């Protein structure tokens, strides 16, 4: 039934007041101190200034990002159990995806635009990693992820690796995008398994892009479309004010 969709849209509506609060509070103490020349009720100018700095921080992070530097890996004994579930909806909203209904659309600046079935994805060479996922909220958790190195996949589909962005769309209407250097990072993993089991629904069945060099919300679950582009694709949280690069 459509219940999860309804719950999701209600949850989104409930979130809205909190976002409006940002505008109301943004110009309070710091705003007065920082922009004495501005009208005090001019919260838009404060917000646009802050977003300008955030775009500058995207550039700084891209410059700091060392493609050869690996995120630390851990012994399996250090795994966080149970690994936390986190999304913009609660557990009831987790999409119910059937294996034979699933297909992965590949588009944009790639040579091979055929859609991938799960069986095809499962035939690609696999690797595993035990890495720390750091959430933008501050908490972190260590998990064991298995799947296909994303650069291998991008090579298979003949992606233009000189392009700026890789965009990702998800079955739960989530979407995000990443920079090409991160897409090609050795630990960026098109994840099909968690803790040696088929990727469970709460962690993104059947397909999640896992990047230990990015914050958790940049690691999209239930990925159904991957596209390579030079046009900034934004993201679900990014469009609401979260920093786009959000690298670690």
């Amino acid at each position: 039934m459509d219940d999860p969709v309804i719950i999701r849209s209600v949850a989104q509506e409930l979130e809205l007041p909190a976002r409006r609060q940002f505008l109301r509070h943004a110009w309070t103490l710091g705003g007065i101190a920082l922009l004495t020349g501005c009208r005090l009720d001019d919260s838009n100018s404060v917000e646009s200034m802050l977003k300008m700095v955030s775009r500058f921080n995207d550039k700084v992070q891209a410059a700091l990002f060392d493609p050869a530097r690996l995120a630390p890996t851990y012994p399996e004994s250090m795994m966080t159990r149970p690994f936390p579930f986190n999304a913009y909806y609660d557990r009831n909203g987790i999409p119910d995806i059937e294996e034979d209904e699933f297909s992965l659309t590949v588009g944009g600046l790639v040579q091979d635009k055929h859609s991938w079935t799960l069986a095809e994805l499962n035939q690609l060479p696999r690797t595993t990693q035990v890495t720390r996922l750091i959430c933008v909220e501050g908490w972190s958790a260590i998990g064991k992820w298995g799947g296909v190195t994303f650069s291998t996949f991008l090579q298979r589909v003949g992606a233009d690796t000189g392009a700026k962005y890789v965009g990702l769309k998800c079955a739960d209407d989530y979407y995000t995008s990443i920079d090409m250097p991160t897409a090609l990072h050795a630990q960026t993993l098109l994840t099909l398994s968690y803790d040696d089991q088929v990727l469970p629904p709460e962690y993104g069945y059947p397909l999640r892009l896992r990047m230990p060099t990015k914050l958790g919300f940049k690691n999209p679950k239930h990925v159904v479309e991957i596209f390579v582009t030079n046009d900034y694709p934004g993201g679900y949280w990014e469009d609401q004010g979260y920093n786009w690069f959000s690298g670690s």
Partner: protein
Amino acid sequence: MSSSQTIHPIWLRLTHWINVIAVVILVMSGWRIYNAAPIFSFQIPAAITLGGWLAGALLWHFAAMWVLFINGIVYLLLNIFSGRIAYKFFPIPPCEVLHDFLAALKGKLAHADLRHYNTLQKLAYLFAVLDLIVLVLSGLVIWKSVQFPLLRELMGGYDSARIVHFVCMALLVAFTVVHLVMVALVPRTLIAMLRGR
């Protein structure tokens, strides 16, 4: 020459007040960020936080960090190359520290000549500078834990860097409270930090 009467040069007063603005924004937005995933069993009252929600607080935090960082570098360079740090803060004789500490307990610690810091002031201000440096370093580990591996290990990993960051914030707030009480006791110091004399 008026410069002979100057207690705090203009660059010191400017960097002091810019630092105040940056620290207030960073602490208040930091409290809102803390509330998103508290390390300890308490939350900071939302009314005294900045940003409204997590994304807003992060925008403030990652903007004000540049103000703190660049202002801090300017402060340190000018302090070192003008020689101020050497003659204002050193030496700090231990017996004098003990003497000033006992005097402070009796409520008789003097700060009559604003050009000279007593040893407790020297220690307190140097502590604030060092604490801010550790705040920046632990903040770097939280922000970019993969890109700064040496710093990350120095902080004991990502999770403990968060604790270091929080404890240093708490210590800075404690310093500020004591600092403000002292300024209230010797209000001339506020005038000196504003107009230099």
